[in-house]
């Protein structure tokens, strides 16, 4: 069966970026890595491309987390091109708010165990139970249980952080 790569790309790229973003916490970098995963997929043409893409993306993100010290996008403040201008034009207050918000979500996700987090992020990126089971080695029947636990833990951890925030202010 031939794969409609164009269709797959359009339907999967945003999901892949979302999945990667929760791992590298840099929107621009998440897009880079998603693109990189697609470039590799086009070169390798795997039989189950969607699952393959997520697996390669997870590997890329893991690699990134292990070895890369990311430069912050603010470094391009003086860069002369339009993209940099657009980046730098962000309202600092809005930028801080966004980072604060992401920071809280990130901390809450960190409170979830690694496997549970992976399952949660894969589900949120549009993977089916079967795809999640294949990617993680869990039984399909265990995916729901894992998701239930992960969702509850995430919600609790986020609430705790919000309460701590309120208490601090």
């Amino acid at each position, binding site marked *: 069966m031939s794969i409609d790569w164009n269709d797959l790309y359009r339907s999967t790229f945003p999901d892949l970026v979302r999945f990667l973003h929760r791992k590298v916490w840099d929107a621009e970098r998440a*897009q880079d890595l998603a693109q990189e995963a697609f470039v590799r997929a086009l070169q390798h043409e795997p039989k189950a491309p969607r699952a393959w893409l997520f697996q390669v993306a997870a590997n890329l993100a893991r690699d990134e987390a292990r*070895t890369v010290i990311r*430069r912050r996008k*603010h470094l391009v403040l*003086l860069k002369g*091109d339009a993209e940099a201008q657009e980046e730098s034009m962000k309202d600092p207050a809005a930028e801080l708010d966004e980072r604060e918000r992401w920071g809280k979500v990130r901390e809450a996700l960190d409170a979830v165990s690694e496997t549970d987090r992976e399952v949660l992020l894969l589900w949120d990126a549009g993977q089916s139970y079967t795809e999640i089971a294949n990617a993680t080695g869990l039984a399909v029947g265990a995916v729901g249980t894992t998701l239930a636990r992960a969702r509850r833990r995430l919600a609790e951890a986020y609430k705790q952080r919000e309460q701590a925030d309120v208490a601090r202010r």
Partner: protein
Amino acid sequence: MSHVDEGALHAYLDGALDEYPAAEARRIREHVETCAVCADRLTAEREVREEAHAILALAAPQVEVPTFEELRAYVVRTSQTQGRTMSVRLRRMSWAASVVLALGTGWMLRGGDAVTISPLEREGVSAISEPVVPATPRNDAAATTTTELRAADEAPTTPPPAPAPAPVLDAVSDAGALGATAATGLRAEAARTPAAAPQPAFRVAQGTAEPLTDARADLNDVVSSGAGAVTGLAAGAPAPAPTPPSDRVAERIDSAARASQAERRVAVQDQVVTSAISADAAAPPRQRAANEQEEQDETPVSLVVPGLEVLDVLPVGQGTAFAGIRALQRLESGDTLELVHLPEGIDPSLLPPLRPGNSELVRQRPEGWLVMRGPVTERYLQELLQRLEGGR
């Protein structure tokens, strides 16, 4: 009849029961629809599910999708150039050349070495940052980069089927080699430099020689780092002194940060400066004279307005070259004050245009430029400037 477990309830809510064995799926559906207890549980689990979904949605990035044709064309190009597979975003490619230029020239600090902060981006090779924090001992940064890329390229161990390993990437090796120079520059420099040789004047530069074991650092450290950089700019890479000026400024900034009760933590990983400023001995005679004069005139520089909460202190740059410090502080009104410290030779007009409703104050100082911006009156900015300079 036993109730269904919460995993089954979530599968029900997720519409995933079709992926269960048919009999099991039927049993769950029938039970949930007839059992009052499980109906209540279902309501509770639905709330948890929606809550989690909403939390994750808070961290959803805006996604820009390059066209598939662009992606395809890029793949063709990369395969023609022997696997420069670590791609950059397609829309970025137009300015890749300028990054190369920045790499080559850097930003020259009064005849000193270019102070680079960021990892390298080169042609189609994305920013593979310096492996400053090796989780395991690594001898060669270039080798590390290539190895890690291979690791990332490895196939999934579970289905889907494993792809063949990618070829060794020349471009990646090139980038890695450059990265190695940048990342290990200080260590290599230290090994080559005799003990009596002057040490780098920059605390930021010194900092990078140490492994960063924590992804986050106290804001005070970051502020200190920034102070080091700006002092260095002011001093024009002064000769070593018993108490480096950067340390004195760092103390002042530390103190200011404490006074502001800054609690936020920012990633020290972004504050990496990978090259030292050249020592005075390397400067031409006229430059040395200028440096001596500047040393006499030197006054510690304050990066932030005392008494205001410091939200963030970040390096800024052009391409890969370090070009200044940007600090954000919270005003009493809750608005954000932006302070950008640029060294002499960097034109403040390069900064992005002022946002509507903001005022700006640009002041030339001995060490360069200070640009203050905020949604306040110019008069108030002047008051803030006085407070800042009062802390000098």
